[in-house]
C-alpha cells in the first residue's frame, strides 16, 4: 500500500542507528472501525456498489417485516376483534388515500382516444369508482365491529380518544349520502375527517399475535388432556436437565447427571402416556434384570471385596426401587394376587391359545396383561421373598449407618458407602407407607393419555427425539453391516439402505399407515403414532448408515490391522478403535441427519398426526382465525429454526472440541 505524503510523519531531523527507528503508527484509515469498513465494505468501486445495493435491499425487506411483526402488531385481546378493527380502519385510510377524483371523473368515451387508451381509462375509472362506492360499506363494517368490541368490553384504550374526536358513526350516513349523490368534494372532506382513525389503524394493522396467544396450548401439546398439562411441562423441564450432561463433557457432576439422563426416557414415557413402564411382561423382564444385576457383582470373578461392596452399595438401592416398581407397591398382598391369578389362569389358557394379542402395543393395557398375568404372578410369588430380603438388608444397613453416625463411631468412608442405602431405605419406607392408603394410590397413578391426543410441539419433539435416539445405533449397525465381510449381511444392509434412500419419506409413512396393518396378523395392531415413529426412525437410520459408512471408509486400513494384531475381537475393534475415530469425523453429517429428521417430522401431518405444523394449518382453516397464515407459519418456522440452528451450532462446537488434527489451535 502506498502512503500518501501527508500520512508520513515529518522527519524530526534526528538520526537513528539502523534498526533503532521507533515503530511508526499504522497509517490512519487502516485500523479500527474505519479500517474495517474500508476493508470489508468499501474496498473498491464494485464492493461499494454491492454494499449500497445490499443496504437498500435489506432496508426494503427488514423495515416492512419489522413494522408488521413488531411495531404495528396486535398482542392484546382475547380474539381477533381488535386485529380486525385495526385492519378495517387501516383499509379505510388506504381507500381514502388511493381515491383519485381525477380518475373518477375520466371519460372513456372521450374523443381522440385510441382503443387501447380507452381501455386503460376505463380500468382506471372503474378502480376509482369502486374505491369511492366501497367506502361507506367499509365504514359500516368498521362500526359493526366496533359495536361488537365495545359490547365485549375489549376496545383498546388508544382507540377511545380517536372515536371521541372523529365520531365515525355520525360521519357514516353523511359519507353514504355523498357517495349516493356522487358528491366527490363532500366525500373528500369526510375522508379528511376520518384520517385520525386511519392513522390509528395504521399502527394496528400488523401481525395479529393474538392468534398464537389464544392457541398456545394447542401449539404446544395438541389435544393433551387439559387438566394434565403439568405432565408435558414436567417432562420438558426434565429434558432440560437430562440433555446438557449428554452434550457437554465439562459439566460439573456429570457422572451423576448422566444417571438421570439414562432414566429420563423411561420416566418421560410413563409421565406422558400415564402407562407405567414396568407393566405386565415388562415388569417381569425388569424384575429378572434386577435379579441378574444383584447377583452379578458377586459372580464376577475379577472383583476385589471392596469393589464388590461398593458396587452393591450403589446397585442395591437402585435394585430395591426397581423391584418396588416391578412387583407393585403392595408386596404384602402379592401372595393374595398370585393366588387369584393362578385360579384365573385356566380361563386365560383359552385366550392364550387364540393369541389375540392386544389392540394397542404402545399402550399395553388390556389383553396382553391378562394373558401373562397368571404366569407373572406365579413368578412374583417366587420372587417376592427376595424383594423383602434386599429391602430388609438395605433398611438394616441404612439404620446401622445412621445410628453409628449419630453415635460418632462411623468413619467418613463407611458413611459414604452407606449413604445410598440410607436414601433408598428412607425412600422405600416412605413409598410403602404412602402406598398403603387408597388416596395415595389414586394420586400416584397417572391417568392414561392416548397418543391420539398428543400434538403440537409435544408430538414434534417426541418424534424428533425418539428418531434421533433410535437412528444413530441402527444406522451404525447398518453401516457396519454394509462393510461386513459376510455377503448375506452386506447384501441385506445394502438392499435396505438403498431402497429407503431411493424413495420419499412420505411413501414410507404411507406404507407404515396403510400397509403395516396388512402385514400383521388379524386383530393385532400398532398405535398410529408408534407406526409413524418407526417409519421416521428407519428412514433416518438409512441416511445415518451412509454418513457413518463415510467415516468408516476414511479410517486408514492400518487402524483395523493394528487392532486385529492386538488380538481385539471384531466388536472390541469397532467399539474401541474404529468407531470413535470414524464417528468423530462424521459429526457434521450426523448432526445434519438429525436436523433433516427433525424437519421431516412435519410430514407426520400428512398421515393425520397433529404435529406443530398441522396445528398451524388447522388454525388457518379455522373459520374463527382465517387470514392469519403468516403469523402461524412464522411462529412455527421460528420454533423449527431455533431447534435446527442450535443443533448445527452445536455440531460446529463439537467439531472444534474434538479437533485433534493439525489445524490451528
Amino acid at each position, binding site marked *: 500500500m502506498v502512503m500518501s505524503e501527508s500520512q508520513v510523519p515529518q522527519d524530526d531531523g534526528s538520526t537513528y542507528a539502523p534498526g533503532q527507528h521507533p515503530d511508526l503508527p499504522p497509517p490512519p484509515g487502516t485500523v479500527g472501525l474505519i479500517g474495517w469498513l474500508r476493508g470489508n465494505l468499501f474496498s473498491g468501486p464494485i464492493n461499494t456498489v454491492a454494499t449500497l445495493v*445490499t443496504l437498500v435491499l435489506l432496508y426494503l425487506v427488514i423495515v416492512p417485516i419489522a413494522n408488521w411483526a413488531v411495531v404495528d402488531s396486535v398482542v392484546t385481546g382475547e380474539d381477533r376483534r381488535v386485529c380486525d378493527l385495526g385492519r378495517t380502519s387501516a383499509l379505510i385510510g388506504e381507500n381514502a388515500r388511493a381515491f383519485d377524483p381525477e380518475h373518477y371523473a375520466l371519460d372513456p368515451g372521450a374523443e381522440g382516444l385510441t382503443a387501447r387508451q380507452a381501455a386503460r381509462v376505463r380500468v382506471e375509472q372503474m378502480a376509482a369508482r369502486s374505491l369511492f362506492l366501497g367506502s361507506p360499506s367499509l365504514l359500516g363494517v368498521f362500526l359493526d365491529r366496533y359495536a361488537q368490541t365495545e359490547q365485549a368490553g375489549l376496545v383498546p384504550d388508544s382507540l377511545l380518544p380517536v372515536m371521541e374526536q372523529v365520531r365515525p358513526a355520525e360521519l357514516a350516513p353523511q359519507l353514504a349520502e355523498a357517495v349516493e349523490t356522487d358528491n366527490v368534494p363532500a366525500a373528500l372532506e369526510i375522508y379528511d375527517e376520518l384520517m385520525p382513525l386511519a392513522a390509528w389503524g395504521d399502527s394496528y394493522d400488523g401481525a395479529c399475535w393474538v392468534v398464537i396467544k389464544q392457541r398456545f396450548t394447542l401449539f404446544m401439546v395438541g389435544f393433551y388432556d387439559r387438566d394434565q398439562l403439568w405432565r408435558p411441562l414436567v417432562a420438558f423441564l426434565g429434558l432440560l436437565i437430562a440433555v446438557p450432561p449428554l452434550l457437554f463433557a465439562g459439566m460439573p457432576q456429570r457422572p451423576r447427571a448422566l444417571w438421570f439422563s439414562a432414566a429420563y426416557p423411561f420416566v418421560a414415557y410413563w409421565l406422558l402416556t400415564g402407562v407405567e413402564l414396568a407393566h405386565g411382561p415388562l415388569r417381569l423382564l425388569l424384575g429378572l434384570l434386577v435379579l441378574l444385576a444383584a447377583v452379578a457383582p458377586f459372580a464376577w470373578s475379577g472383583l476385589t471385596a471392596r469393589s464388590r461392596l461398593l458396587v452393591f452399595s450403589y446397585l442395591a438401592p437402585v435394585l430395591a426401587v426397581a423391584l418396588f416398581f416391578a412387583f407393585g407397591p403392595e408386596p404384602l398382598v402379592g401372595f393374595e394376587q398370585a393366588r387369584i391369578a393362578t385360579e384365573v389362569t385356566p380361563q386365560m389358557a383359552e385366550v392364550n391359545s387364540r393369541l389375540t394379542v392386544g389392540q394397542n402395543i404402545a399402550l399395553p393395557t388390556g389383553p396382553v396383561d391378562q394373558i401373562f398375568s397368571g404366569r407373572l404372578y406365579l413368578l412374583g410369588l417366587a420372587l417376592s421373598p427376595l424383594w423383602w430380603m434386599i429391602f430388609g438388608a438395605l433398611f438394616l444397613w441404612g439404620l446401622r449407618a445412621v445410628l453409628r453416625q449419630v453415635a460418632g463411631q462411623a468413619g467418613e468412608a463407611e458413611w459414604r458407602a452407606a449413604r445410598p442405602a440410607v436414601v433408598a431405605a428412607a425412600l422405600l419406607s416412605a413409598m410403602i407407607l404412602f402406598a398403603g392408603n387408597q388416596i395415595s394410590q389414586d394420586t400416584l397413578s397417572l391417568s392414561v393419555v392416548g397418543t391420539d391426543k398428543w400434538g403440537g410441539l409435544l408430538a414434534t419433539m417426541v418424534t424428533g427425539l425418539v428418531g434421533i435416539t433410535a437412528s444413530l445405533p441402527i444406522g451404525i449397525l447398518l453401516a457396519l453391516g454394509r462393510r461386513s465381510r459376510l455377503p448375506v449381511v452386506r447384501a441385506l444392509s445394502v438392499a435396505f439402505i438403498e431402497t429407503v434412500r431411493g424413495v420419499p419419506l412420505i411413501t414410507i409413512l404411507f406404507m407404515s399407515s396403510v400397509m403395516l396393518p*396388512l402385514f400383521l396378523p*388379524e386383530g393385532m395392531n400398532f398405535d398410529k403414532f408408534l407406526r409413524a415413529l418407526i417409519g421416521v426412525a428407519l428412514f433416518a437410520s438409512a441416511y445415518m448408515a451412509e454418513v457413518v459408512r463415510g467415516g468408516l471408509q476414511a479410517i486408514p486400513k492400518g487402524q483395523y490391522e493394528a487392532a486385529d494384531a492386538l488380538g481385539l475381537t471384531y466388536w472390541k475393534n469397532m467399539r474401541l478403535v474404529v468407531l470413535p475415530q470414524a464417528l468423530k469425523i462424521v459429526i457434521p453429517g450426523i448432526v445434519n441427519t438429525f436436523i433433516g429428521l427433525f424437519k421431516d417430522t412435519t410430514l407426520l401431518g400428512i398421515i393425520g398426526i397433529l404435529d406443530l405444523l398441522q396445528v398451524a394449518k388447522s388454525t388457518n382453516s379455522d373459520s374463527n382465525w382465517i387470514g392469519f397464515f403468516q403469523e402461524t407459519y412464522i411462529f412455527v418456522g421460528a420454533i423449527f429454526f431455533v431447534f435446527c440452528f442450535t443443533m448445527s451450532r452445536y455440531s460446529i462446537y463439537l467439531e472444534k472440541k474434538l479437533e485433534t488434527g493439525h489445524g490451528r489451535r
Partner: protein
Amino acid sequence: MAVDSAERAKLGSSLWTDQRFRGLLFQALTIGVAGTFLAFIISNTASNLAARGIASGFGFLSIQAGYELDNTLIPFGPTDSHGRAFVVGLLNTLLVSAVGVVIATVVGFILGVLRLTPNWLLSKAVYWYVEIVRNVPLLLQIYFWYSVMIALPQVRNAVDLGIGVFISNRGLQAPAPILEPGFSIVPLALLAAIVGAIALVRWARKRQAATGQVFPVFRVNLALILLLPVIAYLAAGRPLGFEIPVLGNFGFRGGFTVTPEFVALLLALSFYTAAFIAEIVRAGILAISHGQTEAALALGLKPRWTMRLIIIPQALRVIVPPLTSQYLNLTKNSSLGVAIGYAELVATLSGITLNQTGQAVECIALTMAVYLTISLSISFVMNLYNRRIALVER
C-alpha cells in the same frame, strides 16, 4: 444345516473358534430370521387380503378412475383409467422436478458465489438467508407459498402484467402458443444448431491442440443456437400464433394456465434446495487451495481464465457428488405436493387411486418402484458425468 452344525459344535469347541464357520453360521441365522420374517409378513398379507376380499394384481390400472384432476399435462377426464391417472402423476412429478432442478441450480450457484464475496454485508445477508431457508421445514415453506398464492387477488381482479399474462389466486395465465403448419422447421433448426455447436467445439479443440490458436467457441455457439431457430422461424413466415387468455364470467378461458399448486411447490422446492446447493458450491470453491489460483496467476493466466480453467473444473469435482444427492432430494421432496393437492405421483397413485381401489400393496409398491427408478437414473447420469470430470488417478 443348523442342527448339523450344532452337533458338530458339541463335538469339538474348535469349530467355534473358526472364523469361517462362525461367519457361515451367522449368515445362515440371518437368512433364517429374515426369511421367517418375510414369510410371516407375506402369509399375513395374503390372509388379510383374502379376508377383505381384495384381489391382488395390477388389473385395477385399467379400471375407469372416475375422478378429475387439475394440473394435467395430458388430457385427463373422469372416464379415463387409473393407469392414465398414474401417467398424469408421473409426468407432473417429472415436470416439477426438472424445472425445480434448473432453478435451484441457478439460484444456488448465485447464492454460493455471493457467500464468498469479500463484501462482509452481502456475505452475511446471504448467510442468514441460507440458514433460515435451510433450517425451516420444506413442508412449512410449501404451505406458506401456497397460502401466498391463494391470498392473491381473485380472478376478476387479476393483476394484468401486460402481454396477456395475468396473476390471480387461480394461478398464472399466459398466452398459449398455437403451432401453425410449417413450425416443425424451428425445432429442426435448433437441433441442427446444437449438432453444429458440438462439431464446432470438437474442431476448435483440435485446432487449439494443433496450432495453439483459441477460437471464441462460446460466443459463436451462443449466436448459432439463438439465431438459427429465429432465422428459420422468420424464413418460414412466422408459423406461430398466440391464444390470449380472456376473462369470462367463470374465470379465464383459453391461454395457458400455471396452477397455484404448481407455482407454490416449485418455488418452495427450488429455494429450499438452492439454499443447500449454495452451501455445497461454497464448500466446493473453498476446497480448492489458494495455491492453485496463485500458480495460475503466476503462469500469466488472466483472472477469468484462472476461474474457468483452474478453479471451476477442480471445484466441480467436489461439488458434483453432493449436488447429485440434492437433485435426488428435490425429486423425492416433490412428493410433498400431495399436501397442497398438486396432482403428482403420490397424490394420484398412492392417494386417490389407493383410496378408491384399496390396492394398498400394489399402489405403494408401484410408487416406490417409480421413485427408485428415477433416483437410480439420476444417480447413473450424474455418476457418468462425475466419472468424466473426476481426477484421473494411477
